[in-house]
């Protein structure tokens, strides 16, 4: 008798048994606190590791390969440094600002009750999206930490090859504090399934006078959420929080730091597309942790997010290559890699909501649009977003966020939205959801755009953003770090 079978039979037996038992109801009213299912723990530990892999070495190599040899090391350094710094900030106060109750500011940002991870022990648990399913809070903190690390790391690509390291050292703590943690809170913070289901049940059971109190409790639970979450915006794994957020911040940085010396005149080919491909591949590999991990459980939803992350990426890569073949005569590896990233970005908010066929469509759209944006539109506008952070992450993120509103529709093969108060998937109003998504996109664009502009400006005043022209020509590797990436 296999384990699975025995457990199943046990469940049935127990059900029968409970019916015989008089005191059965006592169980439901005083449930033991839920303990983690080790399968969920195993998956979430793995997912956290995958997101780190996606950042270092993944993102570092993807970006590094695209710059010139003399700035390779600085690119690696910047990504690596951001990861280290944000790790520490996260456990000091970032997690608390993002994921604790924020009192009067709760719509915008969390509080400091969990600063220094106060009160968290190996036994503490965090809720998933399923009532009663929990994971160790440390795993949840780790998993969310990796998101906080990669988001600012994405930004540095926009100012690549010309931003001083000291400017970055100042910018990053400011940015995560005033932009990332609030946006993460606004989009992802909520009371959790336990409270929601509990309040809903109480409300359903309440009669007479208790009804009003129960309704008030229910309202309080619903209100205990970040702004965008409260609107009902869907963002499975971070289309707004991670990609639109970093993409618009990158654009601000690129504008404020200005174009690279020689931009448009000198050739600036990627020094190693080999490293870029390795980076892109590791981004893909790691993104399964990012997307499928965002299910927080080793469940069918995680599996859905995984398959979507396979096919949207593949479709976007093919779309970008096809567009190149048509527009420029040859499909390129950089095109394929860029398309893959665009597809990954676009599928991020949709991963657990769209069906695989919807994900393919989303990928194709992202591939075409981002390709068009990164060549035609960017050249027309003339700004120097060195590694196309805006063109891929912000544009791709917007496509994904809006697309999620469409593709989540069950009629299009999507999952719809689970309604915790009724315990089942609710009716899907595509127009309304699309508008909600658009609102969340705008919120992110404005908050991060304005915030990043201000913070970059402050940094510019305090330490300056750029090295001298000669130094820029010599390369940031030697100037900022006194090292060279290669000594063949």
């Amino acid at each position, binding site marked *: 008798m296999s384990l699975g079978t025995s457990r199943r039979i046990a469940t049935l037996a127990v059900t029968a048994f409970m019916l015989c038992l008089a005191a059965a109801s006592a169980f439901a009213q005083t449930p033991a606190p839920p303990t983690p299912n080790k399968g969920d723990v195993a998956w979430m530990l793995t997912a956290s590791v995958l997101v780190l892999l996606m950042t270092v070495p993944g993102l570092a190599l993807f970006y590094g390969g695209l710059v010139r040899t003399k700035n390779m090391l600085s690119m690696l350094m910047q990504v690596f440094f951001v990861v280290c710094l944000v790790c520490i900030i996260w456990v000091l106060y970032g997690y608390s600002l993002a994921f604790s109750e924020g009192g009067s500011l709760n719509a915008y940002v969390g509080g400091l009750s969990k600063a220094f991870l106060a009160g968290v022990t190996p036994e503490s648990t965090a809720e998933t999206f399923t009532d009663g399913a929990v994971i160790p809070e440390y795993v949840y903190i780790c998993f969310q930490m990796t998101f906080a690390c990669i988001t600012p790391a994405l930004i540095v690509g926009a100012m690549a090859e010309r931003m001083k390291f000291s400017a970055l050292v100042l910018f990053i703590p400011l940015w995560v504090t005033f932009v990332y943690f609030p946006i993460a809170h606004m989009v992802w913070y909520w009371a959790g399934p336990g409270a929601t289901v509990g309040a809903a049940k109480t409300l359903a059971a309440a009669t007479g006078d208790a009804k009003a109190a129960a309704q008030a409790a229910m309202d309080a639970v619903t209100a205990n959420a970040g702004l965008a979450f409260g609107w009902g915006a869907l963002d499975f794994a971070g289309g707004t929080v991670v990609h639109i957020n970093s993409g618009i911040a990158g654009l601000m940085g690129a504008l404020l730091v200005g174009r690279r010396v*020689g931009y448009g005149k000198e050739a600036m080919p990627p020094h190693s597309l080999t490293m870029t491909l390795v980076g892109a591949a590791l981004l893909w590999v790691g993104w399964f942790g990012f997307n499928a991990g965002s299910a927080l459980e080793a469940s069918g939803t995680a599996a859905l997010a995984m398959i979507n992350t396979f096919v949207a990426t593949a479709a976007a890569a093919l779309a970008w290559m096809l567009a190149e073949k048509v527009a420029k005569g040859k499909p390129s590896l950089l095109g394929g890699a860029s398309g893959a990233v665009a597809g990954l970005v676009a599928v991020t908010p949709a991963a657990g909501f769209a069906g695989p066929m919807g994900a393919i469509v989303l990928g194709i759209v992202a591939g075409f649009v981002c390709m068009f944006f990164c060549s035609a539109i960017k050249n027309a506008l003339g700004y120097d977003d060195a590694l196309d952070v805006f063109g891929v992450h912000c544009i791709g993120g917007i496509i994904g966020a809006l697309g999620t509103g469409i593709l989540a529709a069950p009629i299009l093969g999507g999952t719809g939205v689970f309604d915790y108060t009724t315990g089942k998937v609710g009716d899907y109003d595509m127009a309304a959801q699309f508008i909600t998504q658009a609102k969340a996109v705008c919120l992110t664009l404005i908050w991060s755009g304005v915030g990043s502009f201000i913070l970059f400006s402050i940094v510019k005043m305090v330490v300056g953003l750029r090295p001298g022209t*000669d130094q820029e020509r010599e390369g940031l590797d030697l100037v900022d770090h006194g*090292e060279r990436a290669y000594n063949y």
Partner: protein
Amino acid sequence: RPEHKGNQMKLVTAIIKPFKLEEVRSALTDLGLQGMTVTEVKGYGRQKGHTEIYRGAEYAVSFLPKVKIEVVVPEGTVDKAVEAIVRTARTGQIGDGKIFVSPIEHAVRVRTGETDDSAI
């Protein structure tokens, strides 16, 4: 093999800063020089190098990346070529580089076997 006295060629060798290559190339092309050969070299000179540190080890690196352009020209074009290089390669800062002119006695185009002036 006759000495082509009336048909002298010179090798103009210029050592310049790498980012100036494109400008110099197009200035030379404008003079009607249709060929040149370029080598990545390391230069030592008045321009000071830098220090690199790898854990406990410090290295003073005195060689800097330069580009060497070699162009063989008919005697009569030497001055114009030198002038064009000086004009385009100059930044006015130490390390701009040097130009050397040396004699070439004979030139052959491999493809056709043409020699001397018609080879370049």
